[in-house]
């Protein structure tokens, strides 16, 4: 699988404090890579190191199979921390200026402005924009030059629910239609779980896990809940099929914590025993719960 970003043993220290401790990350073409970690875990620092904004102490960064940022810079768009804008210029003028170095014509600029919902801002200066509009303008700048890889650090910060949905749709659209690869960090884990195809979990400067979204979903599938009219009788019947310690009665429901794939068998046995099963479903941990478990929170 073609690698879009590969880091190997990245170490970054600030006055003796190690903030990135040997990060080796691999992002494949077409991924929407959700980068999660609590505040100060090292997400932004890693993105800054990858983009050469912060010098690293050790390690290697390569883009698109062993190329340096200087060689592929125009194929990499980014929005790191607060958007860097010419505050006294309009949204159009901001894009116009950056298009000089990224390369984009007027029609492309207008297309991007429309895409991020800023086409009607006219001559209004960026300094008068709301936080959400500034964020969208930052994304618009990142989209100039038709990048193949976008690094977005907290891209939905400051956006209202409608704005969040719009940005989510834009990301999904660009990923699907133009095969743009994304590295997105966000604190809004449930929001990230709606779009990410892979996840990287960072804690105290260490990348503790990289996991596919499908695999994560399986890992998060953690219990089978059965709602019925006679829980004690149901528990006795199920005890013959599942270890006793894996069956818990909670809120008058039965929870089974192992062999969740045999749900049809459990249902049949209960019904055959004359128990009325009103509901049977699998419960998932949210990404947030999984994340908290992984970092030991």
């Amino acid at each position, binding site marked *: 699988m073609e690698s879009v970003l590969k880091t190997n043993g990245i170490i970054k220290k600030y006055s003796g404090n190690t903030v990135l401790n040997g990060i080796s990350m691999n992002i494949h073409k077409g991924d929407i890579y959700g980068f999660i970690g609590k505040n100060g875990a090292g997400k932004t620092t890693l993105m800054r190191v990858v*983009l050469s904004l912060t*010098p690293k102490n050790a390690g290697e960064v390569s883009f698109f199979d062993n190329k340096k940022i200087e060689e592929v810079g125009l194929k*990499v768009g*980014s929005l790191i*921390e*607060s958007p860097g*804008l*010419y505050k006294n210029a309009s949204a159009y003028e901001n894009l116009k200026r950056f298009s000089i170095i990224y390369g984009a014509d007027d029609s492309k600029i207008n297309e991007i402005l429309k895409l991020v919902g800023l086409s009607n801002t006219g001559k209004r200066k960026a300094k008068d924009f709301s936080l959400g509009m500034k964020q969208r303008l930052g994304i618009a700048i990142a989209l100039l030059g038709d990048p193949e890889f976008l690094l977005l650090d907290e891209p939905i910060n400051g956006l209202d629910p409608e704005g969040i949905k719009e940005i989510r749709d834009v990301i999904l659209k660009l990923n699907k239609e133009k095969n743009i690869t994304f590295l997105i960090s966000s604190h809004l884990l449930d929001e990230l779980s709606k779009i990410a195809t892979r996840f990287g979990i960072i804690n105290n400067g260490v990348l503790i896990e990289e996991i596919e979204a499908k695999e994560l979903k399986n890992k998060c599938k953690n219990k089978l809940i059965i709602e019925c009219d006679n829980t004690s009788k149901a528990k006795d019947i199920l005890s013959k099929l599942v270890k006793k310690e894996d069956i818990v009665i909670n809120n008058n429901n039965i929870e089974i914590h192992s062999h969740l794939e045999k749900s049809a068998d459990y249902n049949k046995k209960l019904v055959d025993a004359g128990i009325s099963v009103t509901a049977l479903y699998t419960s998932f941990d949210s990404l947030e719960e999984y994340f908290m478990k992984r970092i030991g929170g």
Partner: protein
Amino acid sequence: MNRLIKLQIRNLLRNKLFYVCLALTLITPIANLFFAKTDPVMVSFIGFIKGELGLISTIFIAIFCCYDYNEGTTKNIIARGYTKAQLFFSKYIVSLIGLFAMYLIVFIVTFVLFIKNGMGYESNMLYIIINSMFKIFAESAFFVTLAFLLEKNTSAIIACLFVPNIFPLLLSLVKTKLNIDLAKYWLDNISDKFSANPTLGNLNWTILFYSLYVIVFLFIGTRILKRKEIK
């Protein structure tokens, strides 16, 4: 690099304060012409103002060129594969372009006004222009380095105004304590020495020292910048 220079030029031309600097610099030759035949005291005062305005323009154009550091737009450039050194040199080049454009306009206006009013110009005008050019190279390297490294407009303005005055003081101190006269090699003093006697020999000497200053300032700038984080 060409694209970076184009971006910096657009940034400079979109800055209204650049035109304020240009207007202020244009006032002096016009005022000079007005008082030239009537008030010699005023002429020497205008000469002083002209020098100060020239220095202030050099400082402010350097700051205008580095202004985007304040806006956080620098990271949009570095993150797209341009090096810090390329960015730094593009700013230096554009500050020179801005200054030369400004001085060219002032020069043409002055020349036309003086010729039209039957006033002559100095025979060694070419030497004076070349000396001024190299002085601008050196001063601009100094101010762009300071402005780029300090990142904040206010601190850059303060530093650019005061640091050039601190160096002569330090060099005078060296002269007093160690009896070594290094002050004569400072930017302003090189220029003063040439102005007193604008000959080809002195011009070569000033070109050599100004060029050394350019190399030293730009070298220091790029070295420090290498270890600096881009905000």
